[in-house]
């Protein structure tokens, strides 16, 4: 066994690998860039080495620097994590050339599987089912008809030079083929100057399901079942689960068999993942094989009880797989939610900054793989993933509920996150029923997700907790010293919980016998118990004996309460004050559709339009540079530029107006 391994990665996955290495008694070396001087993975490792640079290119992707670090620290082996150099044959080879071990598959397997065409050929050779179709271009409409018949409808015509949906047509019946074929050609020509197209089977409502395989250097193979990864946003997985609620034993067995056959054919060892696309009749087709540890490996670990990183290390150290297929048991249901620093209501723009406040949920069903602590910096240089929140319980329904609760008590301040979006997804009816495809997010969230959506109605729990919190604050305010006698300070029991459109009446009293707060809301009686510490941003409360979590912030009688992915802004007032508050004018919301606003803090590097100019939807208007990245701001609709407020070279704050339209 190795005595020291270097982890050629950063963030949560580096921390993850260090954890297993430590358990196995292996020393660890972290490498880090300048931007990661204070990062958590550096703190966790036994040794660390600064390889300099800020960008990935200058650091975690710089093979020579990492090889030097391996030599300098005299590490026996290198674990590449995922991303960066994990599927780079050149890197693996250089490690082997200096007599060290690359913790991963054989070099050839990396290069074959890294090539879209070669991997498909090998898959075909291994009798793995691949998407019916012909990558050769179609010469004419007769050719197209013939090909489509062989493949079977529906089919999709794609531009050979294509991308971005241009020159793409889905055809369900032969009678529509000719027209679609012609328009696809036209579009391909006009978009890419290349009218070649090809035909492939169109997979309806596809799901993305993958099989985890493990092999050792002695020809032993096992699979650890599947992972359901259909919840994706622009090919970025967001939520994964194991097992897939869609996969039955037969489907699992046949997918796994093909995955293992493919692995055998390339002499694979270490951990690998074979990705399939599955249609609604449970036909499955090979997509690609990932020759590394997957981001979403924890869900498999949770249901199998195995440590995939440990197995990878043992295999690389020439040990035999310690288990057979029959030892692999699947227990319960695991779900992983990827927490990203991004703004889900602004087209998922990455959000960077310091985690000014950060509290992780802890519990027996929770596994949280993170590489940050309070005060960590989410930098623009790397992937904006903060952590992976995983839940494991007896069944899917319970895991979903526990996920919602865990998200409710996961506090992340300083950057925007997709936490509320994730919460909304797992509460979505179709998600709960496991009725979804890779189109799920584009179908349900075409505009992203806004947790402060005006249509959100107040729910009882939020009204109750707002009343409770307000009452607690008032009790304390009444504890102030130097009060005068004769003016007995009475704290009202009757309250109005008010949002812009709603008003709810509550009555709260403290029950000193059972230490509950009793609240009456809409003639219903609720019991609340909580040992919340005043000022703490998270509230755990038993409401009618049901444990619930809330995130709150307060400014005088104004509160914002987040719960289950929704954020409510409300005010709690006594009856009389509520009457007076109703006299206040509603502030007109600025019509922001007439403005181009900076989506992030940055520098205005160019303005492409002039005052009075007509612009079309999609036209580039201005470029804002944020931390060396240029962001092109485009017109959302046709408009006329009325006024330009900022000039090139101005530093902008978020939401600062740049242009006003007429």
């Amino acid at each position: 066994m190795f005595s020291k391994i270097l982890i050629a990665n950063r963030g949560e996955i580096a921390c993850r690998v260090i954890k297993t290495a430590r358990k196995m008694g292996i020393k660890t070396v972290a490498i880090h860039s300048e931007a990661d001087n204070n990062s958590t993975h550096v703190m966790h490792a036994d040794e660390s080495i600064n390889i300099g640079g800020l960008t990935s290119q200058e650091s975690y992707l710089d093979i020579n620097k990492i090889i030097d670090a391996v030599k300098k620290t005299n590490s026996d082996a290198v674990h590449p994590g995922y991303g960066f150099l994990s599927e780079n044959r050149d890197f693996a080879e250089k490690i082997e050339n200096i007599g060290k071990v690359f913790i991963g598959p054989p070099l050839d397997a990396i290069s074959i599987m890294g090539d879209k065409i070669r991997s498909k050929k090998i898959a075909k050779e291994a009798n793995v089912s691949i998407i019916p179709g012909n990558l050769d271009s179609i010469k004419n409409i007769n050719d197209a008809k013939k090909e489509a018949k062989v493949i079977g409808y529906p089919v999709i015509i794609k531009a050979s030079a294509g991308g971005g949906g241009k020159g793409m047509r889905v055809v369900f019946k032969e009678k529509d083929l000719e027209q679609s074929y012609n328009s696809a050609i036209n579009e391909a020509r006009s978009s890419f100057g290349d009218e070649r197209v090809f035909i492939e089977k169109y997979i309806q409502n596809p799901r993305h399901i993958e099989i985890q395989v493990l092999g050792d250097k002695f020809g032993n193979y096992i699979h650890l079942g599947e992972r359901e990864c259909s919840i994706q946003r622009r090919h970025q997985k967001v939520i994964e689960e194991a097992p897939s609620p869609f996969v039955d034993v037969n489907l699992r067995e046949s997918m796994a068999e093909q995955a293992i056959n493919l692995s055998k054919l390339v002499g694979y060892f270490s951990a690998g993942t074979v990705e399939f696309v599955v249609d609604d009749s449970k036909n499955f087709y090979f997509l690609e094989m990932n020759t590394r540890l997957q981001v979403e490996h924890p869900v498999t670990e949770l249901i199998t009880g195995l440590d995939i990183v440990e197995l990878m290390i043992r295999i690389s150290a020439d040990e035999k797989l310690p288990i057979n297929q029959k030892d692999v048991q699947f227990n319960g249901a695991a779900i992983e939610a990827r927490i990203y620093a991004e703004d889900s209501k602004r087209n998922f723009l990455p959000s960077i900054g310091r985690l000014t406040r950060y509290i992780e949920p802890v519990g027996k069903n929770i596994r949280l793989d993170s590489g940050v602590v309070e005060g960590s910096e989410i930098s623009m240089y790397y992937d904006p993933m903060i952590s992976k929140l995983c839940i494991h319980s007896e069944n899917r329904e319970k895991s979903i509920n526990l996920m919602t609760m865990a998200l409710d008590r996961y506090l992340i301040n300083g950057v925007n996150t997709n936490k509320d979006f994730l919460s909304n997804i797992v509460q979505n009816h179709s998600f709960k029923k496991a009725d979804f495809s890779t189109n799920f997010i584009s179908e349900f969230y075409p505009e992203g997700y806004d947790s402060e959506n005006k249509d959100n109605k107040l729910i009882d729990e939020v009204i109750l907790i707002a009343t409770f919190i307000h009452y607690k604050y008032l009790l304390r305010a009444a504890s102030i010293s130097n009060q005068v006698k004769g003016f007995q300070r009475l704290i009202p029991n009757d309250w109005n919980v008010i949002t812009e459109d709603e008003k709810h009446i509550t009555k709260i009293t403290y029950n000193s016998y059972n230490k509950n707060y009793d609240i009456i809301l809409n003639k219903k009686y609720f019991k609340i118990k909580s040992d919340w510490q005043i000022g703490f941003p998270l509230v755990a409360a038993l409401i009618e004996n049901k444990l619930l979590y809330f995130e709150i912030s307060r400014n005088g009688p104004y509160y914002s309460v987040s719960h289950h992915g929704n954020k409510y802004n409300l005010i709690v007032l006594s009856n009389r004050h509520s009457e007076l508050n109703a006299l206040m004018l509603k502030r007109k919301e600025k019509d922001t559709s007439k403005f181009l606003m900076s989506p992030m803090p940055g520098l205005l590097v160019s303005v492409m339009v002039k005052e009075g100019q007509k612009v079309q939807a999609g036209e580039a208007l201005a470029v804002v540079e944020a931390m060396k990245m240029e962001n092109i701001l485009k017109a959302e609709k046709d408009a006329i530029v009325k006024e330009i407020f900022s000039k090139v070279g101005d530093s902008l704050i978020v939401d600062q107006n740049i242009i006003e339209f007429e």
Partner: protein
Amino acid sequence: MHDILKKLDEKRKLAIDGGGKKRTDSQHKKGKLTARERIEVLLDPGTFEEWDMFVEHRCSEFEMDKQKIPGDGVVTGYGTINGKLTFVFSQDFTVFGGSLSESHAEKICKIMDKALQVGAPVIGLNDSGGARIQEGVASLAGYAEVFQRNVLSSGVIPQISVIMGPCAGGAVYSPAMTDFIFMVRDSSYMFVTGPDVVKTVTHEEVSHEELGGASTHTQKSGVADLAFENDIEALFQLRRFMGFLPSSNKEMPPNRVSEDPADRLENSLNTLVPNNTNQPYDMKELITKVVDDRDFFELQPEYAPNILTGFGRMTGSPVGIVANQPMVLAGCLDNNSSRKAARFVRFCDCFNIPIITFVDVPGFLPGTSQEYNGIIKHGAKLLFAFAEATVPKITIITRKAYGGAYDVMSSKHLRGDVSFAWPHAEIAVMGPKGAVEIIFRNDIGDKEKIDKKTNEYRDRFANPFIAGSRGFIDDVIIPSTTRKRICRSLEMLRNKKLSNPWKKHDNIPL
């Protein structure tokens, strides 16, 4: 007896109705509460003791003797805010436009006199069209009576003004002499001369809002301390604000129960200051992580934001906080930030509120605009304010403390009680680069030598230990322990006694 009570009721009703339903409705239509409604929000329910409800004006010019409304446009009295005694006057715009008559002024003066005698704060809710013109010089005399009382009360009892409507001409000078001014957005404005006069005299066209609205005074002039969205928010925040103030200069600031542990560690503070000394960080994060419940009541957030001022609590007792903000102008001192902080420091010192100062200051802002506008005198105000203050003073140097600005920022030399430095602190005459370019000015062309000397200087002086070796700082502390160290220091200083030599008053460089 019954008849008399009936008559009393009628009289009271007349006073309570003020300017009548029509005027009240019009006040409401503007999103403004009436004078009495405002008091209902400001004071604890049922605690208001009204005085002078039956006072009427004595003017007979311009047929004024035919128009009399009991109360005469201002509601005065006292009550409690969270149980603490508070005097209040609330001008009634529905009665003669809230204009100030002789008797209106007398009502205000009456409660001001009593407040001063008993040692309790006075809150003025201003909503007045100005002087009662019909009364002429009698009205002006009324203003002056109020001004005089503002001055005599200054530093004895807290005086707070909330501008909730117009406040123009001489009327602005009463709020101007109180300790704090709050404004309501869109419904209040303050100026010495209004847009019409401005236009006649300077041909400048400007709206009420632009000339003297809440945004103008909280961002540009610094006249107001805070602006709020509406009457309700302003009054609720004022209630919260009053919780930080003692009733008078003879009292200690009020304390209340705190569940926040005094020894709470904040590990993230250890990474707050970036490795690169030129990179900014948000000083507000430090403040919120140090004070109780992360509750920081910031004042003048939009004016001179290169310095932060406001109140917080430590283990339940109020403290005043002054901090350089590296996010804006690198946290340097300039005219506006010096004046802003100086006034705040003096307020704290008047009312026995300990001052905590967080220092990261590269120096004074250079330039002609600063010098021409008198940075020498304005900077001196802050220096003066810190130096004369006798309340407990605790200073934490988080990063840079350069030059004269180091001395100014509540240094040990200005009777600072406890000075701490974070390990990365640089207490020096100036930054390494600047220093080397002066000491070795003959070698400026020799980049290698300059770099070498810069590094030498940095190693030698850019640290807290030189200052430590002289006792100018008491300890170098781990950032995560900052709250604990401040809480202990405050406890130790609880019974601090220090007084300045007898004087009529000092002569701060105004």
